[in-house]
């Protein structure tokens, strides 16, 4: 087990830079998730840690040892791929044993490790099968078994659940998490699915266009997103953004949305007259007699809750209700955010956080 240190890492293809000097640390035994939209560089970064992509500049160290010049097999890592990447002409047992045999490990020791891994993953009955005779979930387990037997310092996962159906994904999510709790191996996990990131991670790195937007524990990102990108990316349905102007004098600032005033917590960037963007999570919107006037456009009942897509002028506002209201399309409503549940962001392109509270325990 080991910590991973990433310092000023860059990746360039010709003249194009796709990763712009990233630095962060992954602690020993931590489950770190890299998340972001496709093309944000998260997979490239993972492949650089694995040694499958060259590091154009900067250093990556695993367990205090700089690995820039080492081939993948010498980095003491194991990787689980999206397509499982099992050797099609080898049995499950042979797939798991292969890397150990390549290292010239003792036969009895290989046997023991494969048995142990198979027992952990519930694959004992399948050891003699070929990958083509297994289901998607079983194949993914074999791929994990292949990683476990090596007893590496770091596990790398590259979107391992993307090819599974929704139900299996939820199940495997819990299994991977359980496995990590049991083995306590440092893990780097790449996904584009923010729910996977939220449910599995100790800490999350949110990436966008080759930059890090924010690093933090899942609820920290949810409650105090550093900017509009993180706020919109984390959470489903995503956060509503509404343009507003700060009004009110002295100690009681309010946000003015076309004549409707919403009280804000005072903060350093919250100055009267400033144009800002308010961020309100769908579940923090409540029905009220007065407030933001909206028109119902779409109603999506999911059973446990109801998503109501509404229009406020040209903006779209989504609200989530746990109670069962009966809304008709075109109906006029007034929505009001729960007290203290408004995030305030700069109206500029970066959209940095200026203040506001989001969490139930915050403030």
């Amino acid at each position, binding site marked *: 087990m080991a910590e991973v240190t990433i310092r000023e890492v860059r990746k360039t293809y010709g003249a194009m830079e796709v990763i712009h000097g990233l630095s962060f640390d992954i602690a020993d035994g931590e489950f770190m998730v890299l998340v972001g939209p496709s093309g944000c560089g998260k997979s490239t970064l993972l492949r650089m840690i694995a040694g499958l992509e060259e590091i154009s500049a900067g250093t990556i160290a695993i367990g205090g040892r700089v690995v820039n010049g080492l081939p993948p097999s010498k980095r003491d890592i194991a990787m689980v791929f999206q397509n499982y990447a099992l*050797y099609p002409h080898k049995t499950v047992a042979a797939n798991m044993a292969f890397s150990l045999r390549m290292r010239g490990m003792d036969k009895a020791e290989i046997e023991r490790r494969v048995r142990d891994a198979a027992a952990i993953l519930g694959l004992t009955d399948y050891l003699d099968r070929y990958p083509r005779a297994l289901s998607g979930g079983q194949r993914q387990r074999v791929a994990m078994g292949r990683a476990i037997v090596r007893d590496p310092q770091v596990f790398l996962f590259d979107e391992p659940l993307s090819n599974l159906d929704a139900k299996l994904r939820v199940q495997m999510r819990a299994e991977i998490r359980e496995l990590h709790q049991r083995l306590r191996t440092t893990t780097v996990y790449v996904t584009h699915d923010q729910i996977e990131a939220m449910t599995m991670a100790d800490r999350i790195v949110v990436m966008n266009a080759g930059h890090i937007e924010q690093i933090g524990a899942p609820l920290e990102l949810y409650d105090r997103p550093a900017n509009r990108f993180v706020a919109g990316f984390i959470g489903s349905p995503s956060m509503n953004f509404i343009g507003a102007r700060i009004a009110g004098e002295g100690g009681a600032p309010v946000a003015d949305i076309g004549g409707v005033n919403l009280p804000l917590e005072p903060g350093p960037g919250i100055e009267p007259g400033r144009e800002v963007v308010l961020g309100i999570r769908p579940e923090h919107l409540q029905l009220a007699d007065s407030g933001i006037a909206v028109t119902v456009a779409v109603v999506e009942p999911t059973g446990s809750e109801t998503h109501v897509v509404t229009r406020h002028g040209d903006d779209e506002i989504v609200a989530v209700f746990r109670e069962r209201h009966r809304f008709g399309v075109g109906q006029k409503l007034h929505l009001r955010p729960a007290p203290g549940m408004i995030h305030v962001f700069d109206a500029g392109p970066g959209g940095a956080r200026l203040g506001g509270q989001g969490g139930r325990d915050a403030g």
Partner: protein
Amino acid sequence: MNKARRNPLNLFAAHAILLTWTVVALFPVFVILINSFKTRKAIFREPLALPDADSFSLIGYQTVLRQGDFFGYFQNSMIVTVASLFFILLFGAMAAFALSEYRFRGNTLMGLYLALGIMIPIRIGTVAILEMMVALDLVNTLAALILVYTAQGLPLAVFILSEFMRGVSDDLKNAGRIDGLSEYVIFFRLVLPLVRPAMATVAVFNMIPIWNDLWFPLILAPAEETKTLTLGSQVFIGQFVTDWNAVLSALSMAILPALILYVIFSRQLIRGITSGAVK
């Protein structure tokens, strides 16, 4: 879709077309075979008749086996064909792997350059090739033929195989790299088995022209001990007199090995298609 498939009219039409095609394709072979067992007179009197007690004769086969070293020719053809196919597949697959797997300057240009040979017939360069072979002292050796046929087959092989190799999962190769496999092991143990259908296709495409070629054996290796089967059969075709019995017998015997090679490769082809895929 299933219903359409089971429709007896469609089924009949499909089989009728296939059967017609089979007859058209096999008819010349059939004519060669039956006539090779007939006397010269019977061949000309009734070319389409089956050999009967009167017209049956093995004179053609006797001539072929008596004149010249038929089994020697046979062996030469076999060596040239098999060796050429081996080198085409080996070097073609290696070049295709490099082109599809590694990012380097001039990759696309190199691919185009290698594919250029598909469009330019190698026979245009016959004179230069002959001069080269003379300079290398390779005239009248089987090596000369093998080299030429390998060069002739490589462009198409690289073209087809690199397309297929692009389809092999990157994750699989990367898993191999993380497991500590060398690039050579990845190539031979992981990638080649997965592109076996394409290899079989390339082999079948290249085999028949090499086996049947008359041009290069005639120019590069006409000596008695390096004659190929096709060249050897020409002995019986003269400007004024042609020993048709012998020609037909030689051709009948020449079909067999090509047929056997074809069966081997096409079995590979089918097995390759049906055996386990990555996902």
